[in-house]
């Protein structure tokens, strides 16, 4: 047995393979994306990018019904999209094991919101395990599948960004052989409508089964080695799970610990026993007081959110500060630097040089259009100097929001923008809605032929699957025409005049319409084109080109310059320069 360094996500993929998972489905989303990317590379497994999380979960449920162990992965907000399926799957149960990897993002490193998805476990009455490092992540996948099969339920495995994207040592047996026995080949789907058709009559019969299951899981929670007491100083007893456990271990090295691996349902007797052994119980958990409130209901006097914050990401430093303020540890020495602070300019993420999205947002800004947006790299079009997006809530929201603004009576010219992956995720129903309800929204699909934001995954428009096979390229223009859209145009976002003209035409017409701005993502294609040159004698340093917000363009004393190492030669600055000072060498 050797040790291999793996991220939490890599370890989950390896653990799933070892546990004999045969079907995997996911929609990308930071910090969960690499789970399915890695799982897809193991021999003898099927893995797919589904168009959204709900479809992914249904695929996982189907595979589990059919007797194959299955894994589904998504980020926290993805589970909102898949929630409907989560709830029916809780009622129907599974046949073979089904594990749902759910990645929370405390501190919003790459998300539109912070939410504590442990609440979904309680809400849907589904058990949830939470590993605290890569090795546990590997092991817990197998345990989750066993729980799933023993108790006939889907099981949630929760990670957070600091687990998913942190690396640590994992037991690696080198042999690429699943340890779980191979399932019979091919599997037999056992028809069981009383259990799998959730008509009210059937669902009513399943309802008490769900509660009985939870009771049994509560008993299991008392016995399982997932939960363990680590004896220490009886003065202070810490209850923690996941990444927060690791931070707490650093800050309270001598304390007694109850380390939870199963975070729902909780082991009541074990907790009461732990509380009796120590003088003071403190729960260390990120986000909601999920454990704390349940433990308090058990009659235990417990501290938690009166010491540690309710939102944001924890760190050893933050815990130490809070614990010091509460008198639990000695405060770290304050060493103030007496010198005046140095002001450091921020460095926000930006659209890449040569990104096709830039041309569209530049034109929309010039036309002063109200832009309802969506989530992807193109959300960076909201940042200055482009500043050409005015709403962005969640994936698929932009078209519906634009339609609502219209129906409220607003007269301003409007467009909704969304990416190709977002279109397939949740853009089609609101596009149909505009047509059905006689709206006039113009929708622009920023078709860069990839799911760029999350690291360049394939999607139904790219003609390739997750495991590299060629497949049908879903044609967005044909799809829109098939829905009944009469006005559908395809433009190249590098051609500013063409884009301006087509957007104007669409805004002037009273019918609903669709523009597809097609230009492959330059970063995913690793394309590199030569830079244009600024003629310093002609440049009047007016700064017009800087409005593009393209990082190679720098204002010097006398003129603008282009960093040729960064520039990708898209030619937008050539087109917007009012004096013709920027040109490509012939």
């Amino acid at each position, binding site marked *: 047995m050797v040790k291999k360094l793996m991220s939490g996500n890599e370890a989950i993929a390896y653990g799933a393979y070892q546990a004999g998972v045969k079907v995997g489905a996911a929609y990308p989303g930071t910090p969960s994306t690499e789970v399915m990317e890695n799982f897809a590379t193991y021999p003898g497994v099927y893995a797919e990018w589904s168009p959204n999380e709900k479809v992914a979960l249904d695929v996982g449920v189907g595979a589990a019904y059919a007797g194959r162990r299955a894994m589904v992965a998504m980020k926290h907000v993805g589970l909102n999209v898949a929630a409907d399926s989560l709830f029916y799957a809780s009622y129907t149960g599974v046949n073979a094991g089904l594990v749902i990897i759910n990645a929370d993002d405390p501190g919003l490193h790459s998300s539109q919101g912070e939410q504590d998805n442990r609440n979904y476990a309680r809400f849907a009455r589904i058990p949830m395990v939470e590993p605290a490092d890569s090795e546990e992540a590997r092991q817990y996948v197998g345990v989750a599948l066993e729980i799933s099969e023993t108790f006939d339920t889907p099981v949630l495995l929760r990670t957070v960004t600091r687990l998913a994207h942190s690396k640590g*040592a994992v037991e690696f047996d080198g042999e690429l052989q699943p340890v779980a026995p191979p399932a019979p080949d091919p599997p037999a789907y056992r028809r069981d409508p009383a259990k799998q058709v959730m008509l009210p009559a059937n669902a009513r019969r399943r309802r008490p089964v769900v509660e009985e299951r939870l009771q049994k899981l509560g008993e299991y929670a008392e016995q399982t080695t997932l939960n363990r007491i680590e004896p220490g100083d009886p003065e202070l007893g810490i209850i923690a799970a996941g990444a927060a456990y690791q931070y707490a271990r650093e800050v309270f090295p001598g304390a007694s610990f109850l380390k939870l691996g199963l975070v729902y349902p909780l082991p009541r007797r074990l907790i009461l026993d732990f509380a009796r052994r120590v003088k003071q119980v403190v729960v260390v958990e990120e986000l909601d007081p999920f454990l704390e409130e349940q433990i308090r209901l058990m009659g235990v006097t417990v501290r938690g959110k009166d010491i540690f914050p309710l939102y944001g990401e924890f760190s050893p430093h933050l815990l130490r500060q809070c614990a010091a303020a509460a008198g639990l540890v000695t405060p770290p020495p304050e060493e103030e630097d007496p010198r005046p602070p140095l002001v450091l300019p921020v460095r926000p993420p930006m659209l890449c040089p040569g990104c096709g999205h830039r041309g569209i947002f530049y034109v929309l800004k010039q036309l002063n259009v109200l832009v309802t947006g969506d989530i992807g790299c193109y959300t960076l079009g909201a940042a200055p100097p482009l500043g050409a997006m005015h709403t962005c809530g969640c994936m698929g929201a932009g078209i519906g929001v634009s339609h609502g603004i219209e129906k409220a009576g607003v007269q301003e010219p409007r467009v909704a923008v969304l990416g190709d992956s977002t279109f397939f995720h949740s853009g089609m129903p609101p596009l149909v809605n505009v047509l059905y309800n006689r709206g006039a929204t113009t929708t622009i699909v920023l078709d860069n032929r990839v799911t760029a934001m999350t690291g360049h995954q394939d999607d139904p428009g790219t003609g390739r699957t997750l495991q590299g096979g060629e497949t049908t390229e879903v044609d967005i223009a044909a799809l829109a025409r098939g829905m009944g859209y009469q006005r559908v145009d395809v433009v190249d976002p590098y051609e500013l005049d063409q884009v301006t003209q087509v957007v104007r035409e669409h805004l002037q017409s009273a019918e609903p319409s669709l523009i597809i701005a097609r230009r492959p993502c330059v970063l995913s294609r690793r394309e590199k084109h030569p830079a244009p040159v600024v003629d310093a004698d002609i440049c009047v340093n007016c700064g017009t080109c800087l409005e593009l917000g393209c990082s190679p363009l720098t204002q010097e004393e006398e003129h603008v310059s282009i960093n040729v190492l960064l520039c990708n030669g898209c030619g937008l600055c050539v087109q917007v320069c009012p004096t013709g000072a920027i040109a490509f060498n012939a």
Partner: protein
Amino acid sequence: MDKKKKDFILAGVGGQGTILASDILMEVGLALGYDVKKSEVHGMSQRGGAVESHVRWGERVFSPLAEKGRVDYLVGFEMLEAARWPSYLLKGGTAVVNRYRIPPPAVNLGQARYPEEREIDSLLAGRAGRVWWVPATEMAQELGNAAVAGVVLLGALSTLLEGEEALWLDVIERTVPAKFVALNKQAFLAGRRAG
């Protein structure tokens, strides 16, 4: 062997190769018999934004995040990015910094000022026992590829750490894609000789 803990922060700009460098550093720690962990954030923070990796070596490492005020080595891939982290350094810790500027957008647009080298030096020296400036990008360019600047920095850093040259080179060979191994080894040795 001395297994005193060592914490590192590698700070730079998305696309500069902090992830590869932190992977190498981790593998070296593991090969030296340490428990190791590292943490970094992917996603929105790329696309030219600020990025940082925490790497931790120790007898037993719990948190993948290093603690503010307790980091032994700050490795700056870019000057401004190095300047964001001195408060994380242990008093008397070491900063190894690439003498290389990537102006952020506000500076390009003339709305903000990029600090002078001496200002950054004095900021770092406020906590660091040693601030070591390495012209890593320049050295990497001489080798024909600015992208290996991070490995040049690792070469310099390696002179302050345990581990034979051969061990580091072996890790590079295992960690870097085959066609870049020779270049990265050259970069590492160039950095090591700068020490």
